[in-house]
């Protein structure tokens, strides 16, 4: 019972081009499908990956939204969640297990969440985490173009965020202008979990790049990067591929996605 009929309706309307923001409760933007060239070099999909139509949350999940979730599902409260699903720092910036406090204002993106917690949140909404390809596809757009990645100005703008200190307090979600799909904050705010973060088997040791058979992966070997100019996205891949599902960090949050019928 993961996908009630309502999901189909919510998705079908915006994808049909109807301005159905209210129907989608404002929370999801519909993205059309397409063939997409990932920054990752997929030996099994050299001509690009096919992205099916899907819906993506316009903004990352906030502290306030995540608080409502842990109140409904107390097993995801800090201190109650088994260590196998969330490390000790899980939601450690909250004032208490069910209170936010000054370090976690309700309109700021929730961080210090593990993959398991993010996954459970999305499932509670009959949604799921986006795949890496979906996330990268959505994040390739700027305000006017579906694929702005070749634009050096766009690249600079994104990269400048990574140069900022991560010690600064996080701004609230939704301050940046929406991209062409109506999705905000894919860059410039936080890092985000993907459903298949554990598929990103990029060998962190560059010396192994040319010799995937030597790596620790069965099959065709580790992934490597196709577009070394796109540092901003590469850093995301490197970061996600270094994490376990129970890990949490000060800048890592998430948003949910839904498949179109």
């Amino acid at each position, binding site marked *: 019972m993961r996908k009630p009929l309502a999901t189909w309706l919510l998705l079908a309307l915006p994808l049909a081009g109807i301005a159905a923001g209210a129907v989608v409760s404002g929370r999801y933007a519909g993205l059309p499908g397409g063939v997409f060239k990932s920054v990752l070099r997929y030996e099994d999909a050299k001509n690009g990956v096919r992205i099916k139509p899907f819906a993506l949350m316009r903004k990352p999940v906030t502290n306030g939204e995540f608080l409502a979730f842990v109140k409904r599902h107390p097993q995801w409260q800090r201190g109650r969640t088994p260590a196998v699903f969330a490390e000790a720092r899980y939601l450690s910036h909250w004032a208490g297990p069910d209170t936010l406090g000054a370090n976690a204002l309700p309109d700021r993106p929730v961080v210090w969440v593990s993959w398991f917690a993010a996954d459970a949140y999305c499932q509670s909404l009959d949604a799921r985490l986006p795949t890496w390809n979906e996330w990268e596809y959505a994040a390739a757009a700027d305000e006017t173009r579906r694929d702005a990645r070749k634009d050096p100005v766009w690249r600079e703008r994104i990269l400048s965020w990574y140069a900022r200190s991560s010690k600064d307090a996080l701004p609230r979600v939704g301050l940046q202008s929406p991209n062409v799909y109506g999705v905000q904050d894919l860059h410039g705010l936080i890092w985000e979990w993907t459903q298949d973060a554990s598929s990103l088997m990029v060998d962190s040791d560059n010396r192994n790049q040319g010799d995937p058979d030597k790596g620790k992966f069965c099959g065709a070997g580790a992934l490597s990067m196709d577009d070394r100019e796109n540092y901003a996205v590469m850093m995301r891949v490197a970061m996600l591929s270094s994490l376990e599902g*129970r890990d949490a960090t000060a800048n890592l949050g998430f948003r949910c996605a839904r498949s179109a019928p």
Partner: protein
Amino acid sequence: MNIAINTTMNTTKNTTLHTWVRTVAAGLLIGFAGLAGAVQPTTTALPGDSVYQLPLPLTDSAGTTRDWRNLRGKARVVSMFYTHCQYICPLIVESGKAVERQLTPAQQKRLGVVLISMDPARDTPAALMKVVEQRKLDPARWVLASPRQEDVRAVAGVLGIRFRQLADGGFNHSSMLILLDADGRILARTEQVGSQPDPEFVRAVRQATGG
């Protein structure tokens, strides 16, 4: 819940209906397993760092579906694999056997080997049974089983195994043996697969199975 809506939808989407029915069936089976579990001695709470915190119905090569918490009570060497894999996966089976060969018969009895499929769509009980027979695996010690499709990522997550499905239906995955204690806590792991077992790992297995 939206049972009525789902049923209507599923008249047009047969596969979804099957998934739903299977989910309900699995749920019932877990329920029964839970009842059976109540009379067993392992009634103490699971440690927070136990992988068995994850509810995981597994369907084994005999077609029996049980939650993997039934594996509790014995040290286990666990890995993930898929039966259509030509090259490395047979090595994973071989690695498990190689570890067993390093143990005394008494230690062997105190260890179980569990291979969990990352390809439940193709790894039916019959496909799993074929491997059990071809590789002459002792069903008293070896469990080959498939999770539900929607649980594959989560089980890989708690075990720390990374995988990616390829366009041809195969997988890239880390080949790893993981040693669990009787309560499902990870004691050791090794990425050395093949007939020459990792001596460190073997030492940990010996320790976990009574010296």
